[in-house]
């Protein structure tokens, strides 16, 4: 009988704990006095798993801290949320876009302690300008045709976290950026296959009205601006005959908001990171023939629009990456970070390479690490 008791006691439920954080040492050790002092990593987590999580790479102390949110905010019911889709710092606040939790979580950038949340249905990406946050969302107004629902961009006051404006844009809008008084939003139409959207919406940020739509290519995704007032836009293509591509847009006239495509780079691009005049990118394309993903890691010179290298990882360790899902470059020392999403349903990895492309370290992250943002030293 005691055996049965032993089984029952050892095999019983206990109180469910708050999800604990884990700390690992970076093999490179501490770097006192560095700036940025660290980097946050948003792990997306698979849909329905509620496993979006935030890791912190502490450069200064040489630590990798995994899954910090719940430990810092134990009273938040059901933790950070479902499917992280973007992570940014603006001012002293860290903003995490949680797509399937229909909210933007706002935290103190130093402590990761929750400040509040902004409820935006099906939110995708966030960007900031002049004290406002702008957030794209797949669902705008209720459409007459439920199968043709346009998306929207929301304006949020970063001081009060209140929504102060909204504008209907194209189908399934993704990333956004700003030039002067205008918001440029890449529309994907990803749920409308094969009738993808192919436009950039231009929205006047004072009136919050769409003033123009610029046709580029089917299924747009990333949109970044460079130091020369140009836009760099990537398309996903249709996963069949139209491949993913990278486009450069310039102003039609020096004073107008109207942009036109000036260059189409014959480069598939899944994600990019602008570091000075270098545009780091990777591409990931499924090959039906090979039954595997074909991957490239490259750098484009922003001034000349020429491909400098199609392999910024030079020591052969890129074969350890199963599925690149995010890229970032340290603004100070030029270290390159590549997030590996692996099979989406197990822990990914964050890899760090020197600017020469030699691997420095690799750390286990959460599920689908994808979005990385640097934390600068507090200048106050």
């Amino acid at each position: 009988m005691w055996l049965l008791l032993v089984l029952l006691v050892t095999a019983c439920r206990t109180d469910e704990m708050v999800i604990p954080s884990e700390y690992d040492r970076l093999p490179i050790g501490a770097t006192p006095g560095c700036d940025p002092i660290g980097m946050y990593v948003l792990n997306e987590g698979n849909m329905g798993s509620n496993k979006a999580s935030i890791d912190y790479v502490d450069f200064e102390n040489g630590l990798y801290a995994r899954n910090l949110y719940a430990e810092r905010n134990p009273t938040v019911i059901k933790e950070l949320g479902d499917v992280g889709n973007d992570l940014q710092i603006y001012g002293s606040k860290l903003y995490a876009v949680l797509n399937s939790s229909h909210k933007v979580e706002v935290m103190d950038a130093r402590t990761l302690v929750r400040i509040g949340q902004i409820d935006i249905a099906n939110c995708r990406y966030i960007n900031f300008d002049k004290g406002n946050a702008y957030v794209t969302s797949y669902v705008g107004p209720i459409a007459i045709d439920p199968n043709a629902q346009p998306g929207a961009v929301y304006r949020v006051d970063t001081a009060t976290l209140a929504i102060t404006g909204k504008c209907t844009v194209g189908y399934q809008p993704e990333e956004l950026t700003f030039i002067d008084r205008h918001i440029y939003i890449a529309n994907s139409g990803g749920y409308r296959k094969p009738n993808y959207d192919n436009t950039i919406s231009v929205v006047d940020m004072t009136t919050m009205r769409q003033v123009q739509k610029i046709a580029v290519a089917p299924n747009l995704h990333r949109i970044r601006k460079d130091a020369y007032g140009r836009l760099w836009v990537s398309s996903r293509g249709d996963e069949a005959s139209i491949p993913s591509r990278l486009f450069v847009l310039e102003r039609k006239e020096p004073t107008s908001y109207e942009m036109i495509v000036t260059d189409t780079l014959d480069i598939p691009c899944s994600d990019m990171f602008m570091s000075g005049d270098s545009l780091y990118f990777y591409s990931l394309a499924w090959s039906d023939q090979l039954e595997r993903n074909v991957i490239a890691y490259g750098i484009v010179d922003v001034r000349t629009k020429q491909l400098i290298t199609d392999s910024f990882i030079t020591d052969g360790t890129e074969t350890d990456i199963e599925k690149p899902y995010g890229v970032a470059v340290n603004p100070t020392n030029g270290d390159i970070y590549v997030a590996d999403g692996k099979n989406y349903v197990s822990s990914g990895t964050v890899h760090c390479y020197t600017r020469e492309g030699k691997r420095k370290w690799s750390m286990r992250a959460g599920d689908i690490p994808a979005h990385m943002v640097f934390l600068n030293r507090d200048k106050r």
Partner: protein
Amino acid sequence: MIDLSKPIFLLIAVCAVSFASFGQTNADIDFDIDSIPIHTLNEVIVTANRFTEVIPSQKLTGKELEGLNSLSVADALRYFSGIQLKDYGGVGGIKTVNIRGMGSEQTGVYYNGIQLGNAQNGQVDLGKFSLENIEEISLYNGQRSDIFQTAREFGSAGSIYLTTRRPRFKEGEKAHLKAGLKVGSFDFLSPSVLCEYKITDDIYATFNAEWISSSGKYEFRYRRVTPSGELAYDTTAIRENGDIDAVRFEGGVQGYMPRGKWKAYMYHYTSERGIPGAIVNNVWHRGERLWDRNSFAQAMFEYDITPRLSTKVNAKYAFDYTHYVNNDDKLIHVDNVYKQREVYASWANKYTILHNWDVSLAYDYQWNQLSEYRDVERHTHWVSLASAYALGDCFKVQASALATIVDEEDRGRDDVPNKFKVTPAVFLSYKPFDQTDLVLRAFYKQSYRMPTFNDLYYTDMGNAYLKPELATQYNMGVVYDLDRNDNLFSFFRIGADVYYNKVQDKIIAYPKGQQFRWTMLNLGKVDIRGIDAHAMAVFRFPYQIELTTKLQYTYQRAIDITKPNDNYDGHQIPYIPWHSGSAVVMLSWREWMLNYSFIYVGERYNQQENIIYNYTQPWYTNDVSLVKIFRLKDVILKATLEVNNLLDQDYDVILNYPMPKRNYRLGVTVEI
């Protein structure tokens, strides 16, 4: 010597002596209405000789099934060893089973002898099958022992047989009428009616209808504490959009001839339900709705042409309609209709070469069609050859081979490869002592599961070049019965099987490119080792007090061995616990019956990697039911009170799909 099974056997032995609860659902017999004199014991029917079955099997029948606080077939299957139930919660939540870690698609479910199909996703939602009209549920690891069966029945890695109530008329009876009403928590309401009619002495008709409705609104609770023991959060909410409204009609006619029998059967199920969805941060209700219509008609004819040669013909037509709508205004609107059609025919023959040597030959044909996202068709042919041989009274062997031929047809593309596979199986059983009911058994079986229509063709995700998924099983076991009839210690059974399964070319979803696009690949490899153990004891006390106790235990180590450099290499596969089991105690006194059952599912992981972030706690429920039968002349009135999850445990079977807290059901049936 490290022997895993040791502590388990010891545990069972200890329990047995201490009169604790244990047992196992392992009665066995194919009891046909007109055959086999059976020894009835407290209505838990047990054959005198276990040796009739060559293949490990488990059964739940009659009164036992009624006492087990089960609403659907899925609930009852929790009491079988080697089975893991995936339950998304509530009356309307999807419930599928996984036998011995091999995956739901490797499980065949047979309704009155013919397989229930779902060519679209290969899974059968057992939550849809009410127990109201089910008389017997059996589970076979491998295949049914009888070689006189359809070719398809040789094909599954594990088989579940659902048998509807068979009419039994006493002398002079001509008709039965049974009406029932169940009410319970979550606004559960379910009236049902059953009619049985004796048209002639040899022809019976039955009709059964049931309506199930529930708001599905149940309380659930999430509570977390900090490592220092402080309360972090504690919230109770109501499950939303889990309502169901379902109607089931079924009926048939069956007849008996001196040398054969026949049966025609129809089934229709229609439902509307909400899909409650995962509970995640900031999302407490969702807007997905599902309308289902499942209909089938099937017929069977069996005839002994000569004393040596028997033949059996089966036929079926099935039509399934599914309408899925996502009305959630925060998500992209989806509105899809899927239609599936199936035509099936089988011809099986058995020939007795010698009194101890039988052979069988069967041919089955099936046509499947799916329309909506793609118009696809498939023709499948099965040919089986099987033989059973007995050496004296002590040794039995069965061997079978099944050829499966699949002709794929997809109107969108012409390069979908056809498939051809042959799978063997061998079953042995040995009874070493003449006077002792001790049986040793072993089997080896290979089975293929064909890729489903979703695997092959689903938009963006399907991969037309998939190969079938292969499962190989090895099993060895022993079972011992002690039948002492009217003694106080009246019946005892103990048994165990150890097994080793390998799944190769496992069809898994693999991510491709960006934007969460997936494809299906034959990538997975799983290595499964396990033990199913069970014990049962029946005591007959004075004053008509009877006590039946059952205990079953399963140990499973099912590890992923797909690729050595995966970070989950060698880890237990998701949702398969190492330890699980159940205990049942049934106490009856005259017209009262009190049942207690305990189900335990041990710790497991909800994703491939066995790390703290994927850890899922054990869950266990205590269920109690009380049954009282009143007899008023020819009328039998039965009242049942059930309390489920007596200790009010808050648990998820599937991550983020909370299960109901303590809940109640009251049922009344009147039988004339």
